[in-house]
């Protein structure tokens, strides 16, 4: 057997059209007005648009309000423990090349308790699409400071205002080595769909930071980027490679240093694709290791292999 030879060719394609009804599961437990509803809606729309059958995807999550996501999508899914969803998703991704792994979570899960796993998932470039719903606060535990809470934010654990420098998610992802980094806003549904589609078409560790408002504990946090609330949703102007003089000024998504500079803009910053690289995935490296190793050995059966090893131990 090999990681590339799963038994999925036997699964008959679904003849019926994938509708929103078919991909909807439990009604979300989120508070009315929560930004995560819009992220879920954007995800449904993406699945519908791309007609991804239930058997071709898996939705995984750690712990947090947004990490409840898998219950609301009618697909195979797992609700794991706090902060460890990236390695769980890595296991599924590496063993099952036939599946597209979607991972959902929040800022606490991804940047705090799971911060180290984020770096290593990025470094190893394991193929998956990870949507981080960033609300700048711990919502499920009712208003404690999060790793992205701005300095001065008054929470139950910082009643006089947060004092610790917040994580800059885009810079963290760039430093970690993520090969697709996007940023979007839960009030911009078309932009979200666009980001999710580009992320899932990327062969590698693709992450989207999605500003998603916690109406209960941090209302209005993202109004400065919401045109309907008087803010500005500033898009990254990507290079078109058309040779025009104005293209010189546009952002080259393969330019890591330019991405750092974009990520340094003051809040609310810019939205769109910061960085994209075609660095090979761990999935590809491991598949190649299997193929070359087995070719060298002459593709023996499992029994022949182990018997051969034991013969050398006599």
């Amino acid at each position, binding site marked *: *057997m*090999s*990681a590339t*030879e*799963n*038994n*999925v060719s*036997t*699964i*008959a394609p679904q003849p019926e059209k994938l509708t929103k009804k*078919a991909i909807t*599961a*439990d009604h979300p437990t989120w508070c009315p007005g929560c930004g995560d509803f819009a992220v879920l809606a954007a995800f449904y729309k993406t699945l519908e648009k791309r007609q991804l059958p*239930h*058997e*071709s995807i*898996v939705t995984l999550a750690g712990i947090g309000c947004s990490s409840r996501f898998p*219950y609301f999508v*009618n*697909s*195979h*899914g*797992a*609700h*794991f*423990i706090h*902060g*460890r*969803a*990236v*390695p*769980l998703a*890595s*296991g*599924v*991704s*590496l*063993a*099952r090349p*036939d*599946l597209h792994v979607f991972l959902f979570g929040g800022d606490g899960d991804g940047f705090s308790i799971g911060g*180290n*796993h984020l*770096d*290593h998932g990025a470094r190893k470039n394991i193929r998956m699409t990870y949507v981080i719903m960033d609300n700048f606060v711990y919502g499920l535990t009712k208003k404690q400071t999060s790793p992205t809470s701005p300095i001065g934010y008054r929470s139950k654990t910082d009643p006089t205002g947060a004092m610790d420098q917040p994580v800059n998610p885009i810079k963290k992802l760039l430093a970690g080595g993520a090969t697709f980094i996007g940023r979007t806003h839960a009030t911009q549904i078309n932009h979200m769909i666009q980001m999710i589609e580009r992320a899932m078409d990327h062969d590698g560790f693709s992450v989207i930071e999605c500003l998603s408002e916690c109406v209960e504990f941090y209302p209005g946090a993202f109004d400065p980027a919401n045109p309907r609330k008087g803010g500005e949703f500033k898009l990254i102007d990507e290079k078109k490679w058309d040779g025009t003089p104005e293209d010189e000024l546009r952002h080259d998504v393969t330019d890591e240093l330019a991405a750092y500079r974009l990520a340094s803009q003051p809040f609310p910053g810019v939205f769109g694709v910061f960085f994209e690289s075609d660095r090979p995935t761990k999935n590809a490296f*491991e598949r190649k*290791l*299997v193929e070359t*190793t*087995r070719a060298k*050995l002459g593709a023996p059966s*499992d*029994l022949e*292999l*182990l*018997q051969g*090893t*034991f013969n050398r*131990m*006599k």
Partner: protein
Amino acid sequence: MLARLAGRSDQEVMTYMTIPSTISGGPSIFQVRIGSGEVLSAGDEADFLVAFYQHSYEDHIGFLKEGGVLLYDSDQVQPDLGDKRFVYVGVAITGLTVEALGGTAKDKGKNIFVLGLIAEIFHLDAEKLKDLIRERFGGKNESIVNTALMAFQAGYSYPVGGLLTTRYAFEVRQETAGRDQVTMDGNQALAYGLIAAGVRYGAGYPITPWSTIMEILRSELPKYGGLFVQAEDELAAVSLALGFSYSGYLAVTGSAGPGISLKTEAIGWASMAEIPLLVVNVQRGGPSTGLPTNVEQSDLSQAIFGSHGDSPRVVLAAATVEDCFYIALEAARIARKYSTPVFILSDSSLATRIEAFDEPDLTSIMRDPHPDLSPRSNGYKPYPLEGITQHAPPGTRMTEGKYPVVTGLEHDEMGHPTGHPSLHMAMTAKRRRKLQQLAAEIPLPEVYGDAEGTTLLVGWGSTFGPIREAVDRARERQKGVSSLHLRHLHPLPNGLENVFARFNQIVVVEMNDQGLYGYGQLATILRARFCDPKIRSLTKTDGLTFRVKEILQGILP
């Protein structure tokens, strides 16, 4: 090489090795016990001691039995020749090796020279040993093989016989059963057992003495189409393994105690979400970083209870190097059938000890690793209250159109989160009942010795050998001593109370502390389970394996 030679000659063999926990090295010993009969432990006393250095002589001369032979390098060691208990054989090992190798090799090759000496003294099969030398060094360049063979020949032709009055020889045993013997250490046996059991994926983090298992799996699994991931930490390692298992391929993670401590939350998830998983703990000594290169059996309580909430899991322990292979098969069988995490406890003495055992019949053992992705229909429930969970891996078509989510939140039969009191009670009972069902299926282990008597020694893990040997020795003196070895520690097999009833006292022998209330970890569990005041405890915490005489001293009045 002596161990492998014994394996090829159908002799029983067992080795014992200590290594220092520092990279710069330090004193290390390697002990080999070879017998024509059954060899159960590495032995309490040595018949023959080889000392290359003064400190090795000083540290280990006490281990030599009276009348035993000290073979020493007269270029390096000055023994106390006045001590008339021992026979002294001084050979200028350093000088002769340098001479034999033309003086260019400094003092390398001394061990091969001594192998030649030992071959001569014990009348071992020199041709077989030369074959082994060729195999061992054959991968390197030809001159290394030739140098090694020259060193061996020099030792073998040295007239050591003149210095020894006693002659040693092993009885030549007739070829026993039809199966060849294989020779390996416990970590190798465990790693290959996992492969035979159909485990193709795993993840780990380096820690002594578990690392060699992950090293073997990292290079072996790609040959079988699988892979092993070196994770960024222990938490990621267990999570990756759970990702593999969730996706349909039963996976392994492992560590020693410190790493297992870090994995416990995710193992609790495996209990709750009912995901099959193999967790290897190659135990070392002490809490915290403890004794990294010594042996102890002090992680039993952690394996059974080490998680928050009621989180049933299965705990097995390997008895011997051979059993490291078979315990992996049993663990994988249970994990799949009961969709549960299963601990495999080994320890640092088993991990590095080399034993020869009958080659397993792989044709009847090898298991297909592929997940069952056939469509599920007819009211499939991920968590049926009446029945054992068998998950549909992702990618499986659910013909009724409802796709399952596996979860660590308390849930109903469909996997929807719920905190309903009656459901939590019912689900807690469901997760417990499947292990009660397993307990009913585990065969009751056989008593070694008479089925009734004064004392029943109860052991688990690597104390198997010394306990059996203690029974043999005690019975020579007409003591009514028997023993019982437990491979399944949680759940315990049903019916142990009937075995215990036939003995006056039950002595649980284990390498851990007697605890606050005077009982070792298994003894505590057995006393809680059977409320039997006959259950006593014999423990030790010196970081070394049990010697037979320590057990005898512990049970004799």
